[in-house]
């Protein structure tokens, strides 16, 4: 489009980038602490990311269903994290979780109740019923609606949609705002801020089979790297074992099978219609013979069955409820049965096909207990940060994490801003403005096709099962794709809404972030949690360390960090 040279300049105390659960909570909390806030979102406020799509449960030791204590939740989180959690962050997540869940309750999110108390259900990896939810498959929409309503009522928060943050502005080693592209008009927008919070969510759009929205290409990790912050644990991408594969199911969350499977005992079958989970369960030290596989082990089991030639036709496993009486299916699935029927699916008669899909990112921006990065005034929260969940995340921890770290980042960013005056230098946004103004019209390559090829490289070579050879080849392919793309943005036509320019800017981030996953994956010569090396099976105690990724010039550096060292 060739962005208009006209620019708009805004000023605020705290700039929040991304309006999912973490970003909205951060904005509310920063405003509550007295800050003037801009909440910038590349899509619509509260609609662009994972939060609104989540349909399942949220974990917190409320003790409403059975007695519980946050330390039990912490023990489960750390065990699931395969000895790699940043225990300070994990403890904050578990200790603050109940307070935020109750706050959301007071804000009328509508957590399901029974007998006068909030209902908590058991989810895999938890030692007791701990997970709250909103019926019917409505957790994420209810959470988003509740936070949006709070934002409407709050003062001091300006919400701006269709605003794609392209780079964080840094002056004298401190964050001082950002440069953005206003997608609908093509205007360049600069924002001066005393503190900036990255709340951009995860990176699962890097993979072909994913549960991601189109805004989840990992922007925040790239923003952080280019601003001088560090990333941690980037090799740990969580694959959700039973993502929907076939037949095509539209209008529903691809990971919706989980609660029904646990409620109704859905069976995972291979092409021989044989159950196979048990034979893998015995390997899980935590399973003590129970029929429970954590996500990393279930992903492993299905992938191994497919590899052994026992996969379903579309390349996954069958999930069958055929042994369950139809009226029980109706009772458990309620209106969902009709939505499935509209998709031509009758669970009493046919199994569906499921397969591991990229679902969540454990790794992310490295922060300390105040959620600040090593760049002064630059904070991060939600799925965008790394550390709390180690090598594997417990189900239900991600939304809790978005609330808890969002609120905490908002609070500390406001505090930081209150001690600061605006520092603004045109130099801090100069390089990004130049980049955007260099956008030129070119017909090749097709940017949408390039995104598909990045997704193929990542799925085929940096998926849940990795080898030295595959990872090296991925790193090479990614570099070649980067060369093909060039260093000047591609645009398609003047005016607003240029999907080609947006793709190009997305690819600039995706390629950097893909490398930031592949490089530490290559270095980690062991298998742990979500990172499985076929050439290095098994956990190696010597690898109980974090890897840190930073950008030096145009090059990514990897550093090893002993687990106990604080940020």
């Amino acid at each position, binding site marked *: 489009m060739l962005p208009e040279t006209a620019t*708009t300049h*805004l*000023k*605020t*105390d705290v700039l929040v980038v991304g309006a999912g659960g973490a970003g909205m909570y951060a904005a509310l909390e920063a405003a509550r602490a007295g800050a*003037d806030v*801009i909440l910038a979102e590349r*899509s*619509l*406020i509260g*609609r*662009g*990311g994972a939060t*609104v*799509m989540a*349909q399942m449960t949220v974990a917190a030791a409320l003790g409403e269903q059975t007695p519980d204590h946050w330390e039990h939740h912490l023990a489960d989180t750390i065990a699931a994290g395969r000895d790699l959690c940043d225990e300070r962050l994990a403890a904050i997540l578990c200790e603050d979780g109940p307070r935020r869940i109750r706050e959301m309750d007071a804000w009328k999110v509508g957590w399901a109740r029974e007998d006068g108390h909030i209902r908590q259900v058991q989810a895999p990896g938890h030692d007791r019923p701990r997970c709250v939810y909103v019926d019917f498959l409505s957790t*994420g*929409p209810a959470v988003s609606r509740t936070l949006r309503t709070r934002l*409407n009522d709050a003062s*001091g928060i*300006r*919400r*701006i*949609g*269709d*605003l794609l943050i392209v780079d964080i502005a840094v002056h004298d080693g401190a964050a001082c705002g950002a440069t953005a592209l*206003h997608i*609908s*008009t093509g*205007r360049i*927008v600069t924002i001066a801020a005393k503190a900036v919070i990255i709340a951009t969510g995860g990176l699962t759009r890097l993979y072909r089979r994913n*549960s*991601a*929205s*189109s*805004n989840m290409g990992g922007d925040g990790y790239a923003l952080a790297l280019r601003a001088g912050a560090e990333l941690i644990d980037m090799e740990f991408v969580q694959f959700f074992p039973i993502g*929907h594969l076939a*037949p*095509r*199911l*539209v*209008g*529903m*969350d*691809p990971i919706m099978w989980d609660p029904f499977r646990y409620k109704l005992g859905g069976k995972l079958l291979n092409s021989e219609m044989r159950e196979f989970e048990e034979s893998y369960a015995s390997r899980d030290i935590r399973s003590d013979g129970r029929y429970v596989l954590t996500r990393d082990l279930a992903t492993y089991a299905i992938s191994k069955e497919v590899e052994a030639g026992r996969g379903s036709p579309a390349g996954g496993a069958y999930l069958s409820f055929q042994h369950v009486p139809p009226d029980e299916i109706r009772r458990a699935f309620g209106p969902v049965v009709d939505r499935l029927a509209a*998709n031509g699916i009758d669970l009493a008669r046919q199994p569906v096909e499921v397969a591991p899909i990229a679902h969540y990112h454990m790794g992310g921006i490295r922060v300390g207990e105040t959620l600040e990065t090593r760049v002064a005034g630059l904070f991060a929260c939600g799925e965008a940060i790394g550390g709390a969940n180690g090598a594997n995340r417990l189900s239900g921890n991600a939304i809790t994490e978005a609330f808890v770290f969002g609120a905490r980042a908002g609070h500390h960013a406001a505090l930081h801003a209150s001690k600061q005056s605006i520092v603004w230098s045109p130099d801090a946004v100069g390089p990004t403005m130049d980049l955007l103004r260099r956008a030129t019209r070119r017909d090749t390559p*097709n*940017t*949408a*096709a390039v995104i*598909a090829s990045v997704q193929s490289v990542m799925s085929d070579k940096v998926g849940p099962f990795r080898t030295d050879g595959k990872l090296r080849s991925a790193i090479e392919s990614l570099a070649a794709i980067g060369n093909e793309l060039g260093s000047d943005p591609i645009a*398609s*036509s003047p*005016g*607003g*809404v*240029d*999907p*080609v320019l947006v*793709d190009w800017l997305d690819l600039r981030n995706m390629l950097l972030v893909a490398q930031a996953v592949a490089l530490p994956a290559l270095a980690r010569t062991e298998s742990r949690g979500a990172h499985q090396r076929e050439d290095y099976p098994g956990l190696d105690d010597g690898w109980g360390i974090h890897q840190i990724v930073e950008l030096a010039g145009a090059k990514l550096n990897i550093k090893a960090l002993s687990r106990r060292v604080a940020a």
Partner: protein
Amino acid sequence: MRAVLAIQRGGPGQASRVDSFEVEFEPGQSVLDGLRLVRRDQDPSLAFRFSCINANACKECMMLIDGAVDYACTVRLKEGVTTLSPLPKKALLRDLVTEIAPPDERLDRATNNGAG
């Protein structure tokens, strides 16, 4: 199977035109799947709005599909011609994209009554 998507295109203040694209599809695939295939295989400059793809949660993909307001991610592709055009009562931004954000979540509002 083959579907033809006849799409109304153009920006505000321009005379609109209709571009037709043929896409191959499997039964069950959505109109949004078809639009994404068009971008990947034929014309990446085609503009339409969507975020969530499968979940029908973001509510961004609303457009006129064969004359009726609907979500591109829930309507199935069919054999033959499907006509697509932008929402008629919203300001056109480009092709199938219209201004759907609530007024107080827009840039102009933030610029006009900003505190700083």
